[in-house]
């Protein structure tokens, strides 16, 4: 099976020789330790629940002299991103972390960072947008930023948070674009897991000091971001677009290089689980993937030919990977922990878009689940698979899962009595 789980298992995990020590830490602290290992030079951040422990831990690390970084405790997320932009154009390696409303406040400067082609890395703890106030997970905050020119990763485990921050600096500094690493509020941000902390010298080899191809330099004065006419703006946008296109190969290469050095791989843009002989696959992202692994295992043991696709990179969107999967399965369900009002779930939209011109287009089913921290349990996933097993085509463009108004007649989509019509997968 090509579903090699990168999370602590894989080919090495906690016992790999690259490991300095294993800490049982929250997702937020995994980000903080990664920032230390990446030898970030400027940190600018503003507190917001549930991101706070990222910056609290970093404050400790910097105060204790364990990281020689300037830590600017700004008065807003907007200023945090402006500080990162300033420090990055000066040539320094910059970091910030935020969540939800803070990310939304940064929106203008997300464009500024990407348009300036600055390799800033940011951790965003995915939290639902208000109103009404919510501090719990969904992905509308980061997905609302999809057109800003930032790469976006969604992490499934605390180890993946740490490893993706390290990979992100390397990718960002290669393609000159900023990267956002997303982790689910509380489900990951405040859940402790064992995390292998790699040896500093190996990280230094993997991620040497930044060598900016352009920066502010009084010996070579240049103006950055000045007024530009219609004769050249479009070409600059094309370059940004091309850099994002090129990022796909860079993400794959960096993930392979990381795997070689540290023994953990995340598949690049997507990770597949039990998809080799699957007829029905579910695509989703972040911590729901772990839950879905359990549901897939269970359904497989019952003989259902199901598989799982983890969308790790949302920007750039994994076009080739998704087209390849679509070419060999009968149905694809997409579970979005977000909603685009007036349209559908966002990953569903994007998947439809990349398949429209593909040679093979299996039916797609768009599910919306888990908004505002509503639990996504193995039962939720099984309900989705039941729907997929029971329907040749979706009954509507979006299928909301777990809405309370519907819960009276639960389970709405019981599993078929036997895997009927569906080919049993072998070896389960």
């Amino acid at each position, binding site marked *: 099976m090509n579903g090699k789980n990168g999370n602590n298992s894989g080919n090495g995990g906690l016992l790999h020789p690259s490991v300095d020590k294993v800490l049982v830490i929250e997702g937020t602290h995994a980000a903080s330790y990664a920032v230390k290992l990446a030898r970030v030079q400027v940190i600018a951040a503003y507190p917001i629940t549930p991101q706070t422990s990222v910056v609290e831990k970093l404050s400790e690390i910097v105060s204790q002299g364990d990281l020689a970084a300037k830590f600017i405790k*700004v008065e807003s997320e907007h200023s945090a991103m*402006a500080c990162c*932009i*300033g420090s990055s154009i000066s040539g320094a390696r910059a970091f910030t972390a935020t969540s939800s409303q803070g990310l939304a406040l940064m929106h203008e*400067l997300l464009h500024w960072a990407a348009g300036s082609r600055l390799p800033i890395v940011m951790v965003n703890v995915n939290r639902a947008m208000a109103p009404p106030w919510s501090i719990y997970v969904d992905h509308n905050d980061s997905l609302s930023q999809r057109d800003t020119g930032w790469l976006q990763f969604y992490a499934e485990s605390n180890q993946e948070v740490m490893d993706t921050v390290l990979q992100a600096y390397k990718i960002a500094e290669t393609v000159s674009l900023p990267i956002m690493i997303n982790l689910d509020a509380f489900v990951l941000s405040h859940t402790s897991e064992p995390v292998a902390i790699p040896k500093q010298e190996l990280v230094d080899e993997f991620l040497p000091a930044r060598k900016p191809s352009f920066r502010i330099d009084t010996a070579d004065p240049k*103006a950055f971001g000045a007024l530009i006419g219609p004769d050249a703006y479009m070409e600059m946008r094309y370059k940004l677009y091309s850099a994002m296109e090129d990022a796909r190969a860079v993400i794959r290469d960096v993930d392979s290089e990381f795997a070689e050095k540290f023994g953990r791989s995340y598949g690049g843009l997507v990770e597949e689980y039990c998809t080799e002989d699957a007829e029905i696959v579910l695509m989703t992202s972040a911590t729901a993937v772990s839950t879905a692994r359990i549901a897939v295992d269970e359904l497989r043991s019952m003989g259902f030919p199901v598989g799982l696709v983890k969308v790790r990179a949302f920007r750039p969107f994994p076009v080739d990977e998704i087209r390849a999967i679509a070419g060999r399965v009968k149905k694809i369900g997409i579970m979005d922990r977000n909603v685009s009002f007036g349209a559908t779930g966002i990953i569903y939209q994007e998947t439809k878009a990349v398949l429209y011109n593909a040679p093979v287009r299996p039916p797609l089913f768009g599910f919306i689940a888990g908004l505002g921290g509503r639990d996504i349990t193995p039962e939720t996933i099984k309900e989705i698979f039941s729907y997929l097993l029971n329907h040749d085509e979706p009954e509507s463009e979006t299928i909301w899962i777990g809405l309370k108004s519907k819960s009276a007649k639960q389970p709405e989509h019981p599993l078929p009595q036997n895997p009927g019509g569906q080919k049993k997968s072998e070896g389960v």
Partner: protein
Amino acid sequence: MGQIKFQLPPEEILAPGHFACPGCGGTLTMRYLLKALGRKTVVVIPACCWSVIDGPVPYSAAGVPVFHTAFETAASTACGIKAGLESQGDHETTVVAFAGDGGTFDIGFQALSGAAERNEDFMYICYDNEAYMNTGIQRSSATPFGAWTTTTPAESPKAENKKNMVEILAAHRIPYLATASVAYPDDMIAKIQKAHDIHGFRFIHVFSPCPPGWKFEPEDSIKISRMAIESKVFPLLEIFNGVDYRLSREPAGTPVTDYIKMQGRFRHLGEKQIEQIQTYVDEEWERLVRKLAPEQHLHQPESRVASKAAKVILAKSQSRKGATS
């Protein structure tokens, strides 16, 4: 007014061929800033006239690195650049946020206040032309009472007084705060150089006339700047640590009418409104004088001809106080 003799630093770092209007105060300010600081300077420019003046891609008139940034981020971007340079061992380069009044008094105020409170180590220059001039003369909180702008038309000119940014920044207790005018380049350069040698957050508020926005002939920019000072509309001063006030130049105390009448933006004002402006200017002046330490009323940043004794001002203000109380 007597002839002032002074020597400006001879090197012209600002190139000719920039995009400024004739008589632009903001451009003279940049010219003197660069003369004062030299080439080891980085300038951060938010949305303002200077987003245009410096020149479109691929041109730049400034002669030093310029980073164009979003409207409300002059202070926060400058703060990041300084931290970035420091983190790479560059402790020499001076980082300057160079913003208009809109980017300073209004939309950039939060970032400015944050940087001032944190005493970030960079210099902030506000070239104040008293409205959103780059977008076509809309009122800002720096627009004075009675002024016409495109959003405060002559039928209902601005009803509020100008925001007192100097007092707001003094309340942040920043190490150095000064006002300057394009009419006195020697004073401005001396203040910028003094600011250069001070560690922490430094703010210089520059009175920057705008011929198209204020409706006067470009050749009168310097004259209008002088009249703003002499009529006490724009006092030249320094404030150390937010509490130690020093006057840089004693105003002659000419009536504001002369200053007002030179500018088309005030053309619609009647005698009563001009009187109202005079009263406000006098009251603000008295409030300022009360803050000057008696022996420090007049303090020119570079020891040039110390004109009249400070006590004259104090005596004047006290007699006026006595008359009104």
